[in-house]
């Protein structure tokens, strides 16, 4: 309006005096640039940080899915192992190989003394379903008897291995060996179970949090 055109008067004049006058614009540029750089830089770094976090969350989700997948697979494999290591399954497998349950146990000491009454195992009755191929059956049985020596009975289907070990071993240190080597199937089952027991606690929060 009209007062703005003329020389500043009154309050306006007083206010005008507060403004810096003269050629100070040259010194102002770096400051403005600094502010712009600071603001822009802050904005960009915030953006980068945010997107990094977001990317992290995508990665997290991906890894969680992967964990779930692997857990599922592990559990499925464990199920297969269990199905094969179950005593019933082992018995069937042993019978397929022509093994029979052994009689009463007999032990052979390191001095050649026989403890117990060894007896010959009954010959496997021909199974109603011709599962074992006839040619494979005879070779399966003789090694058992020849290894056993004093205990020609291929002892119980499950404990075949352990019983043979024990009958050869007899003494205490050897017996612990036999115990650890015995029953490889059960051993594996135990191992896999143990690993199965240690994995779930770490995978648990992810699997249930999905």
């Amino acid at each position, binding site marked *: 309006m009209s007062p703005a055109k003329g020389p500043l008067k009154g309050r306006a004049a007083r206010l005008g005096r507060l403004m810096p006058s003269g050629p100070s614009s040259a010194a102002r540029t770096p400051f403005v640039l600094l502010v712009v750089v600071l603001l822009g830089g802050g904005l960009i770094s915030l953006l980068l940080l945010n997107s990094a976090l977001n990317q992290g969350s995508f990665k997290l989700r991906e890894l969680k899915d992967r964990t779930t997948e692997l857990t599922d697979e592990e559990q499925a494999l464990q199920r297969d192992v269990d199905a094969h290591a179950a005593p019933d399954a082992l018995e069937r497998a042993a019978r397929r190989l022509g093994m029979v349950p052994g009689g*009463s146990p007999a032990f052979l000491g390191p001095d050649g003394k026989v403890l117990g009454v060894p007896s010959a195992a009954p010959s496997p009755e021909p199974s109603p379903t011709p599962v074992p191929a006839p040619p494979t059956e005879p070779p399966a049985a003789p090694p058992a008897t020849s290894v056993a020596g004093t205990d020609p009975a291929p002892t119980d289907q499950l404990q075949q291995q352990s019983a043979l070990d024990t009958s050869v071993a007899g003494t205490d240190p050897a017996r612990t060996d036999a115990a650890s080597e015995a029953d490889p199937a059960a051993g594996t089952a135990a191992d896999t179970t143990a690993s199965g027991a240690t994995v779930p606690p770490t995978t648990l929060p992810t699997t249930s949090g999905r």
Partner: protein
Amino acid sequence: MPSQEPPRRRVPGPARPARPRPASAGARSARPAPRPGTRRPAPRPPARKPRTIKLGSPRPRLRLISVGLTLVMLVFVGRLLQVQAVHADAYAAKAAAYRYQEYTLSAERGEITDRNGIALASSVDAYDITADPKLFTPEESKVPDAPEQAAALLAPLLGKEPAEIAKKLRTPKSRYTLLARKQTPQVWNQIRDLKRVYGQKAQEPGGTKVNLLGGILSEPSSKRVYPNGELAAGILGYVNAEGRGAGGVESMLDGELAGKDGKIRFTQSNGRQVPTAGSQGTPAVPGSDVELTIDRDIQWAAQRAITEQVRKSKADRGYVIVQDTRTGEVLAMANAPGFDPNDLSAANSASMGNAALQDAYEPGSTSKVMSMAAVLEEGKAAPDTHVVVPNRLHRGDRLFKDDVDHITWYLTLNGVLAKSSNIGTILATGQLGATQAESNRILDSYLRKFGIGSPTGLDYPGETSGILAKPEKWSTSQQYTIPFGQGLSVNAMQAASVYSTIANGGVRVEPSLVRGTKGPDGRFTPAPEPAKTRVVSEKTARTLAEMLESVVDDREGTGTRAAIPGYRVAGKTGTANRVDPELGRYKGYTASFAGFAPADAPRVTVYCAIQNPTKGSYFGGQICGPIYKKVMEFALKTLHVAPTGREAPRLPVTFDPTP
């Protein structure tokens, strides 16, 4: 403003346009009038000029406005107070509910393993397959028979009838239906692949644009699996639909197994986590693993042997218990018939418990060993004491007889046990006290020390303590029948424990089923030591073991079928009259066999009982003896117990009556 200008001048009358000017000009010099232009061009039409309207005083109007404003402000302030102070918590909670999402992290249930760490029960991930029936209606799916088509695809995967699935998908006015529970992740993956294929097919040109399987969904859940099926099912028990233990060890140790559910809370936006906002919560604490004293292989052998015999004998049920004589640990506890805890819908509810602990029955002759223990410990007789056993014996109101009709037997006390003579046992226990009442009291004290009539100490759910009346209350016939095992009830564990006590040199070790627990931190906490009590002296126990050998190895013994070549085996047969639980009177028999081996350095006790065998023999020595032999052989092999190689004492069974 009112201080500068009198209020009445603020609204100048239209009749006097000239006069206010100097006043307003003066005012303007101090402060420009806010709307000088607007007032100007609104002069009133001259027609109104003569009518001088007396305007009302503006003061009441201002007052009205200020009062109104105050009221409005008061309402605002009140509401503000209400929101910020009075109901602040409720509103904050509402906001939080909208902003945060909370999930329960279900704790993983612990495993149950056998003594070697082989899993007998474990938990795996599973999915409940659900569906939204609304998406299968003709309007939504654009196909008239969407449920049938989908059912035909899903039925082979879920192992159900297509008609059943189609019916569920046709549920009217519903947005949720459960198609199948606890499916493996593999099944859900297959369904998901199918969904993807159909989704692509629908998007192709000419497709319906609607995924046929779009309404099939899943919910993560967890499933309890028993990898060995029926093996040890009676001991393990089962879990209910919520995954909590509902029977057996699962219910007994539910607190340890269950763990503690955790919680997670995060800031959400449209159901997705805001990654920058962070999340908080408590992680789930997985349950502890429980290690049982059971040996899986021995359990299998026991279960197989008893199942086979129960089927052959067409019996109601049978039990086998294998116990470590030194530690009291139960190595196997098998029931027949059993059930498959993986598929409870197919299980018969009658066979779902652990009958070996939950059935109370009259043990019969296997409990004669306690009477003999009392007689020997009290010093009233020795194994070679002569007992003349008549054909019949009249006591109280009854005439007692032995299993077989015989002429007068001339037996030693050892022979009484070997031939399992009821009359001989009554005669022997009659010597316990000066009067019958005293004899009863002494016998009762021994029975109770052996653990009869009290809980086994396993703390197993539903376990029975058996029935043993107080000696003062024994009926006339009871006081003569209890010595040979009728008129009192035990469970199979109690009966087995009696033999373990004798095998352990007369010290009763409380049976135990749990070796310990392994916490989520992997630390193993062993179960508390079992209580030990001395029942009879070591000498008495050794003598009893020798006497029990005669039962098995003597030509005239009743348990010859339990003999294991090369081993010294101690055992006792039992053939009891069985109380039919429905009729409430004696009907049928309980056949049993109990014993331990090697007799001179006992390691394992095996107890077997078969309830109500209806086909073939019902004598304990005939049907339980072979089971004992099979299971004992297996246990000796598994535990690598060699024969001691010492000669059996072969105590005399009979004596020559001619002086």
